[in-house]
C-alpha cells in the first residue's frame, strides 16, 4: 500500500506530560495511547507511506516482528476517524 496516512483534521495527536503518554484529542474527549500505538502515530505525518513507517519502526526497534500489528493499528485508526489517507 503506497497511500500516505495523515492525522485527520478533526483529531489532534500530542504528547501529554501529565499523563505520561501520547493522546488523541477530539471534541470533549481524549484517548490515551499505549507506548507502541504512540510510536506508530508519531510517524503518521502525511509524508511517509505505510511501508516507510514500518521500516522506520523496525530500525528503531530491531528484531521486533511488527508488520501486522502496525497495519491492524492503522486500519483501526482509520475506522475511528483518527487518520485518513492521501492518495
Amino acid at each position, binding site marked *: 500500500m503506497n497511500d500516505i496516512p495523515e492525522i485527520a*483534521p*478533526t*483529531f*489532534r495527536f*500530542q504528547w*501529554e506530560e*501529565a*499523563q505520561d503518554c501520547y*493522546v488523541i*484529542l*477530539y*471534541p*470533549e*474527549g*481524549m484517548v490515551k495511547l499505549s507506548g507502541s500505538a504512540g510510536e506508530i502515530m508519531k510517524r503518521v505525518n502525511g509524508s511517509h507511506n505505510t511501508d516507510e513507517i514500518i521500516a522506520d519502526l523496525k530500525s528503531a526497534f530491531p528484531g521486533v516482528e511488527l508488520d501486522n500489528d502496525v497495519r491492524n493499528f492503522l486500519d483501526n485508526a482509520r475506522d475511528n476517524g483518527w487518520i485518513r489517507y492521501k492518495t
Partner: protein
Amino acid sequence: MAGSDTKRSQPLWLLAELTYRCPLQCPYCSNPVEIAKYNNELGTEDWLRVLQQARKMGATQLGFSGGEPLVRRDLEELIGEARRLGYYTNLITSGVGMDRDRVKAFKEAGLDHIQISFQASNEELNNFLGGTKSFRHKQEMARVVKEFEYPMVLNIVLHRKNVDQIRDILDMTVELNADYVELASTQYYGWSRVNIDQLLPTREQLARAEVVAKEYQEKMKEKMKIIYVIPDYFENRPKACMNGWGAIFLTIAPDGSALPCHAAAQLPGLEFPNVKDHSIDHIWNDSDAFNKYRGFDWMQEPCRSCPEKEKDFGGCRCQAYMLTGDATNADPVCDKSPHHGKLHADVDRIGGLSGTKEFESKPLVFRNMRNSKELSGETAAAA
C-alpha cells in the same frame, strides 16, 4: 481532610464560563438564576493566568462557554494562549455574534472545535425559544464551521416543546453535516427549574423520541455520532455527576469563583474560592469547597453502605439539595432514596397536566437580566 483517600485527582476538564451575558434568552438555560449579580467579570490577565495554572496541573480539555463566549472581545487572544499551552479547545456557542472572519481568526489562533446550539429545527420555534431571530444565522454559521474543517458538534436541548420534532431536528443535523449531535435532555436546575412545568417531557413523548434517536444512531453510525440521553428524572439510578466531586471537572464562573460543577453555586454552606485570591493548585487540592464531597466519607445512608457508590458517587449534589433540602442525601433519582417516590409523583403530576390548555398557556420565564433581578430579589426576600 474530608475523604481524599482516593488517588490524587487532576482537573482534566476546565470549563471557562467567560461571561453570563448572552443575546439569547433560552428558558432552559443552565446558568444560575442570579446571572444579574455577576457583573464583575474577570479580565484577560486573570483568564490567562487560570489557563496557565490549570494546564500545569494536567488540564487537557478546555471549554469556552458562558452565557455567550463570543461576547468577549479577548476570545481570540485566549484561544491563542490555550493553543500555545497545548489545550484541546472547545468553543461552546449559540453562533450569535459569529461571522466568517471570526471563524477564520479562531482557526488561525488554534481553536480545535466548535459546538453550536440550536433551539429547534424550525425557524419559528427556534426564534421563540431563544427569544431572538437567530435560526438562519446559526445554519449559515454551521456551514462556515464545516468549511474551515472544524469538527462540529450540534447541540439541541430537548424538552416538552421540541422533543416531538426530534426527526426534523436530526434531519437538519444530517443536512448540516454535523460530526457529533448532542440531544441533551434539559437538566432541571437554573432557569429550567423555574420553567419545569412547561419543559418536562411526558413519558410518552420520551418513548417515541427514543425510537427515532435509535433509528438515526443506527442509520448514521459511520458518519455522525449521536448522543441521546434521557432526562434523569425518569431513571432509577442517578448519573455519575461530574464523574465525582472534584475528580476531573473544574468550572470557573465569570466572576472568578471556582466550582466543581457549573450548577454548584446554589449549594448552601460552601464558600467557593476565587481565582483572584488563590492559585488553581490551592483551589483544587486544599480548598474546603473542593474537598467537601470528594470521596465517600461525606455520604449518608443509603449511599454510605451501597455497593454502587463507586459507580455513581451518590448522584448529583445539586439535585439532592434542590429536591431534599440536604446535599449529603442520595440523589432522589435513585430508587433507594426515600425521596424517590415524591420525585416520580411530581413527574407524573406534570405529565398529567401537560396538554391541558391552561397549563400549556402558562408563559415561560425567559432567561434575561430583568427576570434574573426579579427572581433573585424574590429568593432573597423568601430566604
